[in-house]
């Protein structure tokens, strides 16, 4: 949404002065997000402990050799819970944003390809979805089927596709109007070829930024809903829920709070680095 104003607002002096640091920053961000993804994918298997196994005699243990990140009120291993929570959140967010990206991109390209009434209709549809703020939509879906993952997934996908639609509609317009596409079509190549050879390569840099960004946004939305208690329900390990559970024991067991907060902060940091100047909507 801010894309045009931001590119216009970027100072000219940054053209080569900031290029290299920007690229290093972006790589660092991708590295952080990648590490988090690896932790989420392999963590639960590597830690091995059951995130729901309670041991009431080991309540609120500080970090030690048996439990690297300590235990919570019910003696559950914080590391195991963190790994499962990361897997759940990142997995759900990634699936939601991937399945929002495909229809979003296709509709965006279709809109700028067809133009006319079809485009106006699609823009109207996107506007309609934009009338409901994203978190509100996810919240309503969560209320529709409390504690169900599919409801959260639906809400996330439905609110995320609009961004893909807008970006790919704007980015594919100059490509579709360009000489290369015209030449391809005059040579008799079909829409699938044009899409694969001309449009998708032009879109891929934008999409490679948007995908990690929207996945991270989705993780944050999930954590926010979990934190206020309307997202995923206990006893499932979830980042926001872990924070809610840890908040009353902040004084005696700060590590309980630090684990999910730290993971989210890392995620947010990685996202900010990937997104560049950090002024994305």
């Amino acid at each position, binding site marked *: *949404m*801010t894309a045009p*104003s*931001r590119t*216009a*607002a*970027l*100072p000219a002096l940054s053209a080569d002065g900031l290029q290299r640091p920007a690229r290093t920053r972006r790589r660092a961000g991708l590295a952080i997000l990648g590490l988090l993804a690896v932790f989420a994918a392999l963590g639960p298997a590597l830690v091995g402990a059951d995130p729901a196994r309670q041991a009431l005699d080991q309540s609120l243990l500080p970090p030690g050799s048996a439990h690297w990140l300590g235990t919570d009120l019910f003696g559950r291993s914080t590391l195991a819970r963190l790994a499962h929570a990361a897997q759940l959140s990142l997995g759900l967010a990634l699936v939601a944003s991937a399945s929002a990206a495909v229809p979003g991109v296709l509709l965006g390209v279709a809109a700028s390809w067809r133009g006319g009434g079809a485009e106006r209709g699609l823009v*109207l549809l996107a*506007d*309609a*979805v*934009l*009338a*409901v*703020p*994203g*978190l*509100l*939509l996810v*919240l*309503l*879906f*969560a*209320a*529709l*089927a*409390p504690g169900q993952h599919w409801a959260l997934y639906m809400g996330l996908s439905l609110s995320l596709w609009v961004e893909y639609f807008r970006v790919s509609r704007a980015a594919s317009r100059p490509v579709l109007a360009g000489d290369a596409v015209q030449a391809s079509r005059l040579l008799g190549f079909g829409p699938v070829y044009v899409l694969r050879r001309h449009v998708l390569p032009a879109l891929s840099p934008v999409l490679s930024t948007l995908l990690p960004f929207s996945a991270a946004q989705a993780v*944050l939305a999930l*954590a*926010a809903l979990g*934190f*206020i*208690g*309307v997202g995923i329900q206990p006893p499932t390990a979830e980042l*926001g829920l872990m*924070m809610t559970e840890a*908040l009353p024991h*902040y004084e005696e067991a700060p590590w309980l*709070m630090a684990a999910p*907060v730290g993971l*989210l*902060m890392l995620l*947010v*940091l990685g*996202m*900010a680095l990937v997104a560049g*100047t*950090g*002024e994305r*909507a």
Partner: protein
Amino acid sequence: MTGRTTTTTTASTARGWAGILLRRGLQIVALALIVGTLCFAMARSLPGDMATRIAAGRYGYDLVSNAAASAVRGELGLDRPVWQALLSWWGDIARLDLGTSFVSGDPVWNEIAHQLGATVDLSVAALLIAMALGLPLGIWSGLHPGGRVDRTAAALAVLLRATPPFLLAVLLMLAVAVHLGMLPVAGDAHAGSLLLPALTLGLGLAAGLARVAGAAMRQAAASPSLVFARAKGLTDRQALWRHGLLQAALPVVAYLGVQSVFLVEGAVVVETLFAWPGIGHALVHAVFGRDVPMVQGAALCMGLLFVMFNLLVDAACVAIDPRRRTDASA
């Protein structure tokens, strides 16, 4: 000659306004349809017998009998076919009839009217904080690019902008209320209790605002119009106040429009956290209580607030930027 130019300008201004109003009006209709349909599905998908649940919510589980449940069923019309029920549900929304709360039995409008005030208070306070912090910082760093203030502001902005409201809220709660023991953590008993939730929302906004204002100011300061203003004999200060700020205002106002999502989404989370008695708090509370009319009313109201805020931003953009008055298609 001048007369004709004025009329065409007025006509295109009117057309521009009509476009803006039409777009936002359609958004309101879409909002009502989306929220209404979701809430209808919610009402239908409640586990167990809906009439019994509602009766239990009203009279307590001990006093629910079949007679009470069927009285509720008749009263709320829960025994019609789905499409008929959905149509009449939409009709109720169109007639601005939001029904009565399942739990308290009061009309939803009454409850929302109370809470809306609290949410508007919070949003306005957050906006004021954001502007008071973000704008001077942004303008200063835009006029002195690369300076110490600019670099500090940039680093702070990345940090703050990236911290989601609920995380910021927790950190603020722990730092200010628990450690320093200065402000009440939750509730609305004192004026001081507005400060913490407003600060949570305001800080996040201020960070982005400072960055955008800085970039806009830098661009405005480098623009030919400011050079011309200096050349015709204005002092730096006069040129800045009369030309620079107005030019820099446009991206800042447009940015506020984009950030209204942040304000609305943040309100849900922050109000719940700080127990601020606004619409977001009511919404989450209603979700817990499965109070569908309240969920619907609160969601509609938040959506309306969002669309209205966007409309205000549109109007401000048109007022600031004369170019939009002639080709306002956006």
